């Protein structure tokens, strides 16, 4: 007899006009790590929101049976009282508060009129140790990295006496090392009796950590795979997610002629925007040729985004030094417009925060970076604007009813396409794509790769920053590895393997420790 901690039966949830969940059934065994996978918009997060009471009882149909009893949660407090704790993709921590304050936010220790700070920090430290964090709970959230912040979220959940932990894309903003640490922590917690449900796009992580995998597609549960009996290879999971087999995850690029060097950065050094004594890019050298895709791999915080943005018209950083050549000519780009005028474009990793105006339609977003292209002497030609944005919707296969749709209503993959459309309409010759497929589903990723291939076949240069190893290996002609602000190594397509990349990263980290000691000796 299986020991089932949670069963969700015949769950159906409709939003106006859309059936988000359609008769979903899922069973979770006590003490297992249960993965929930599916394309974006398949209904995974909706299902978890139903479970945690964010969508209260009555707004859906079906039953939630937890520990043998049917539950009717009307808010998140109800589900937390039973030990069901959800950790959302976007971390819910206040940067200016300490770890301890954050962990007990809303459930402060002591009395409402007299918070017991000793108990708060004492208890917090206890849980921090459990998740393997050595930081004191007096440290402010803004002073620790995003990987550690994620661990604080888990410590916070443990402090709430969680029995069933739900993690929505816990590693989406973590680098490979931090991701692995987090997954290992889940395994440790499992050995202590914790049940976890993990939502993730990263299939290698799922195969590594999950005991059972439930695949969700179009609001329905398609199948549940058991690690003990089924084949749970990545290909097998993808087949379930998309309903067909994707034999090749990266479209072929052939017959692209690689030409002259279009952009070259020499001896580039950048200091942190706010802490201007901290070096974030350290004497970096790199170049890209026409028709070439150059990948930049590295850990989160290695300085890749900082390098790209500082090159893009000094949009990041202080005390920038070094030389920049475009088509062999030395240039000094003063601001973003200057960079765009020199046919250089940076496509941000944070499409919602830094890339798009979510409350504006596709039409407005598409032309944002090149209003000159749709105006005469500063007067907009609205007809032309429509024509341009419709062209790009068609060209990039953006799924939307009309170009007047607000970008905020599109799925992640389609938002990414609008962001690319905006950048492409600015007519650049060199594009720096920062994490171009972050948080989008397998099908949309393939389409983005196709767009990248089209760009280089037109003779444009693409620099692609990516934290996903398979993507870097599958798409790049050449790969730079960045670590601790330096270019730690350069690999050709033929010689690149994930082991080699990892090796470069680790070597550089060790090397850096040594120089640090040398500095101390001085």
């Amino acid at each position, binding site marked *: 007899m299986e020991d089932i901690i949670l069963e969700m039966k015949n769950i159906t949830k409709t939003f106006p006009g859309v059936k988000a969940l359609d008769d979903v059934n899922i069973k979770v065994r006590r003490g297992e790590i249960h993965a929930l996978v599916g394309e974006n918009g398949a209904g995974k997060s909706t299902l978890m929101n139903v479970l945690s009471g964010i969508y209260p009882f009555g707004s859906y149909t079906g039953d939630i049976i937890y520990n043998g009893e049917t539950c009717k949660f009307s808010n998140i407090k109800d589900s937390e009282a039973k030990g069901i704790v959800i950790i959302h993709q976007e971390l819910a921590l206040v940067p200016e508060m300490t770890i301890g304050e954050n962990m007990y936010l809303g459930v402060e220790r002591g009395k409402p009129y007299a918070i017991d700070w000793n108990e708060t920090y004492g208890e917090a430290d206890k849980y921090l140790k459990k998740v393997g964090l050595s930081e004191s709970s007096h440290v402010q959230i803004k002073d620790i990295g995003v990987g550690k912040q994620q661990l604080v979220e888990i410590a916070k959940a443990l402090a709430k006496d969680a029995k069933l932990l739900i993690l929505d894309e816990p590693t989406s903003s973590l680098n490979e090392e931090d991701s692995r640490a987090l997954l290992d922590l889940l395994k440790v917690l499992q050995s202590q009796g914790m049940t976890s449900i993990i939502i993730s796009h990263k299939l290698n992580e799922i195969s590594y950590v999950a005991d059972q995998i439930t695949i969700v597609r179009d609001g329905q549960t398609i199948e549940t795979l058991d690690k003990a009996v089924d084949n749970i290879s990545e290909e097998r999971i993808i087949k379930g997610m998309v309903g067909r087999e994707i034999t090749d995850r990266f479209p072929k690029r052939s017959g692209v002629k690689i030409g002259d060097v279009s952009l070259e950065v020499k001896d580039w050094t950048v200091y942190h925007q706010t802490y201007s004594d901290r070096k974030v890019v350290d004497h970096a050298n790199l170049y890209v040729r026409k028709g070439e895709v150059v990948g930049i791999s590295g850990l989160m915080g290695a300085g890749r985004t900082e390098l790209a943005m500082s090159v893009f018209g000094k949009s990041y950083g202080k005390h920038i030094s070094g030389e920049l050549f475009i088509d062999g000519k030395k240039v000094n780009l003063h*601001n*973003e*417009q200057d960079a765009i005028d020199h046919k250089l474009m940076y496509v941000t990793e944070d499409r919602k925060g*830094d*890339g798009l*105006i979510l*409350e504006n339609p596709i039409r*407005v977003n598409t032309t944002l970076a090149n*209003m000159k292209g749709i105006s005469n002497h500063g007067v*907009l030609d609205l007809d032309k604007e429509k024509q341009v944005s419709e062209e790009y919707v068609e060209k990039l296969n953006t799924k939307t009813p009309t170009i007047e749709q607000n970008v905020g209503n599109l799925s992640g993959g389609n938002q990414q396409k609008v962001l690319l459309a905006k950048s492409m309409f600015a007519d650049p010759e060199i594009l720096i794509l920062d994490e171009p497929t972050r948080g989008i589903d397998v099908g949309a990723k393939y389409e983005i790769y196709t767009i990248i291939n089209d760009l280089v076949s037109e003779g444009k240069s693409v620099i692609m920053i990516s934290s996903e190893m398979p993507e870097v290996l599958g798409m790049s002609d050449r790969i730079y590895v960045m670590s601790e602000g330096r270019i730690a190594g350069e690999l050709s397509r033929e010689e690149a393997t994930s082991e080699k990349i990892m090796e470069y990263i680790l070597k550089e980290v060790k090397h850096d420790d040594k120089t640090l000691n040398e500095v101390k000796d001085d």
Partner: protein
Amino acid sequence: MNRSTVMGFVKKYTMVLALIVLVIFFTVRTDGSMLLPQNINNLIAQNAYVYILATGMLLCILTGGNIDLSVGSLVCLVGSIGGTMMVTKHMGAAAAIPVMLLAGILVGVWQGFWIAYRRIPPFIVTLAGMLAFRGISNVVLDGLTLAPMPDNYLNLFNGYIVDFMKGDKINMSCMVIGVVAVVAMFLVSLNSRRSKAKKGYSTGSLAGQLVKLIVIGAAIIFFAWKLANYKGIPYILVWLAVIIAVYAYITSRTTVGRHFYAIGGNEKAAKLSGINTNRVYFLAYANMGFLAAVAAMVTIARLNSANPTAGTNYEMDAIGSCFVGGASAYGGSGTVPGVVIGATLMGVINLGMSIMGVDANWQKVVKGLVLLAAVIFDVESKKLAK
């Protein structure tokens, strides 16, 4: 028409419908005196400063819900400069007007510099301005009221377009201008519809567009008829029409206008798209200084004096009109026509309650509640849309 199109219509034209309901309400409660020609004329003359200031305030608000608290004091300051020149020093209007405009622009540039290039919060910079400019005006005026203004100056703002057609009972030229305006509106909008159709763009329903045109046309004719029965078209209406038309065009049809919306929508995205965000903030506040100077000229003409308390609370009227008119408190959305409707709505409430003899204190209570209700409605309807 099904239910959702009716809901969509109501949502899009809420404030217009509210305005119509209010006008009918006050007309009934005042036995029709609300719509007497003189009262229509007063509605424009009394609220001219609100339209001018609210137009400038909209640009500030678009950049991200930023407001300018200093405009009331700036109106007083610029007014005191004009009063000193024209009343005390007996200089002509031709000398005073450029100096007043320049003074307004200089103050706008001063505040714009700190806000845009030094990133001091607008609330702080303009709060400082609100205190300082009021103080300076009192020093300039030495606490006195300067009056009267020269006649040629007064005539620029308080005068009426002469009836060149010499109408018998009514002002004929006023009617003719009204009719010409309506015909021009029909021609322009139908022509743009035809060119859209020619290029193969969707044009929307013809009936809907005609209904809209007919309603606006009828309102213009009605307005013209009322004014013709009084003294004709006041010059101030011409100034207002020019300012509103220019700013409506800038915000909807130019790249600079689009920049204001982009920054309010997502400043980082705008910056990475090559938009000079500092320059846009600067323009918003420099322009506010310019329009405050225009409002100051209108104000001293209307009061026929420059006095130390002129312009008190004008900033609140302007800010209120923007939000009632549908500008988002977070920036990024709002239109000049919307602000015009908002300002008119507040003006109608003012005028209607004054005619009804409602106590001035209660008028403030009502205006406050209307402002709150408008913003609540805006926020709630956005939530529903999601």
